[in-house]
């Protein structure tokens, strides 16, 4: 075998390694920076460059967090990344601040969960929620007013519980997180045994896993209604129904408007855009990415004398966001869309 062929085979064999060995910086830029910021200062996601955070989380926590994500809390699971890719990302994240990463043993913390529950209610529930659901909204994005400088994480989230060891939770409680509202509970007068009891209670959330309100994946892609009216009357009905639900009609146009020259666009395909800015502001606070829903709209199409209405299914679209709070809002939006479509086709 010639040297050239051997070199090619060697290259071929090592290519996957070369691809997987993408630098941590490049991987971070591709998968993490949009939410956590180019330098880890946070945004939609939590600030990873916070020294107090890095001081109290071990590499195992970061690795598992990337792998499992936080179901229902925006952070997706990156289970499809290879272990060395995840490790490269963690190494890059560690470079944000010159802080030594802790190492925790896997020894469970023994505590009195019922006593921990009482302490949790007194000291933790105000930020983390009575069921450990965490604060409302996302990360530290300041495009809208926030109650806290950072959203308290959901500590009953299965992704969190699978990622955080007892010792890590204990360290967070004992030391707090400087630069966030999370304080040291030793300094607040709790004893180490009290902290152990809280850890035991937090761990008990594992037994209280909640089912989602509905199965997003079983939802149809589009809401489709037949109209007994002609195109013009149906369009007028949609506008009236939207206004009746406290929306403002912001635009009526053809589907092809802006794509073809005026007059060449199909006049039998009409979109009615409408918006309720209070609802919009609420949705953007829950998840700044909801622009994908915007503006609310119904498409009305006349084809061979039959008129049909088409609308997005908010429940289905919400499934892309991995955000339980948004799922709840979208459940309400589904009802509103359904009512508008029904009223328009009466």
């Amino acid at each position, binding site marked *: 075998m*010639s040297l*050239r*062929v051997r070199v*090619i*085979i060697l290259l*071929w064999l090592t*290519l*996957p390694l070369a*691809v*997987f060995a993408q630098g941590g910086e490049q991987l971070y*830029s*591709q998968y993490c*920076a*949009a*939410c956590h*910021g*180019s330098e880890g200062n946070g*945004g*939609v996601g939590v600030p990873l460059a916070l020294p107090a955070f890095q001081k109290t989380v071990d590499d195992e926590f970061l690795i598992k967090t990337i792998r499992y994500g936080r179901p229902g809390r925006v952070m*997706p699971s*990156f289970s*499809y*990344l290879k272990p060395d890719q995840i490790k490269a990302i963690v190494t890059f994240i560690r470079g944000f601040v010159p802080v030594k990463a802790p190492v925790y043993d896997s020894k469970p913390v023994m505590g009195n969960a019922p006593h921990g529950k009482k302490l949790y209610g007194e000291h933790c529930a105000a930020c983390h929620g009575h069921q450990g659901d965490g604060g409302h909204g996302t990360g530290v*994005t300041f*495009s*809208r007013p926030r109650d806290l400088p950072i959203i308290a994480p959901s500590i009953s989230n299965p992704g969190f519980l699978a990622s955080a060891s007892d010792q890590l939770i204990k360290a967070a409680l004992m030391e707090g997180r400087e630069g966030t509202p999370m304080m040291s509970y030793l300094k607040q007068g709790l004893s180490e045994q009290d902290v152990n009891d809280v850890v035991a209670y937090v761990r008990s959330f594992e037994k209280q896993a909640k089912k989602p309100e509905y199965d997003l994946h079983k939802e149809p*892609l*589009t*809401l*489709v209604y037949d109209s007994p009216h002609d195109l013009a009357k149906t369009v007028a009905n949609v506008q009236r129904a939207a206004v009746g639900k406290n929306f403002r009609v912001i635009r009526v146009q053809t*589907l*092809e*408007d*802006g*794509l*073809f020259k005026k007059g060449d666009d*199909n006049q039998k*395909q009409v979109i009615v855009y409408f*918006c309720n*800015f209070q609802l*919009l*502001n609420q949705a*953007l606070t829950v998840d*700044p*990415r*909801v*622009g*994908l829903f*915007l*503006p609310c*709209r119904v*498409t009305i*199409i006349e*084809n061979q004398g039959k008129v049909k209405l*088409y609308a*997005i299914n908010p429940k*289905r679209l919400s*499934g*892309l966001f*991995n955000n339980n709070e948004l799922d709840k809002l979208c459940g309400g939006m589904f009802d509103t869309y359904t009512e508008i479509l029904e009223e328009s086709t009466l």
Partner: protein
Amino acid sequence: MNLIQKRRGYSLAMALSSLITAGLLLISHAAQADNMMMARTTQTFPEAMSELQALIQAKGYVVSRVQRVDIGLTQSGYKTDKYRVVFYGKPDEIRHLSQTHPELTAYLPMKISIFAEDQDTILVTANPQHLNMAGDAELAKIINRWEKDLVDIFRQMRGNK
């Protein structure tokens, strides 16, 4: 060309083909796994908006409209940073799909949200694979191309030219 040279050429072609296939598989796997596509750019909002529209057009799409979400919110008394939604599509493709798959018109033209976050700008869109329908090869071909174009646009927006 003698037999040895032919064999070497064949081996080279096979090796290159395998390299490309492996690379594409890895890239497409990473892209397919994401429901949402997101990118952060250190460009200011106006710069990012301008580049985004140029990249969309360079891929043969038409920007049909830009919805100024922030203006409506501000006029209604809410505080917000710059937030826009860019609508785009290929005219003939949208016309064709509105006939063959009218249920998709609720999602057409396609859109990318773009909003400011401090000095950076963030872009978000849904992976078009969520519109795919099982067993529809023609639609899958279109959606795969949309996805590939978006992966490329977002990669360039991140600054990885």
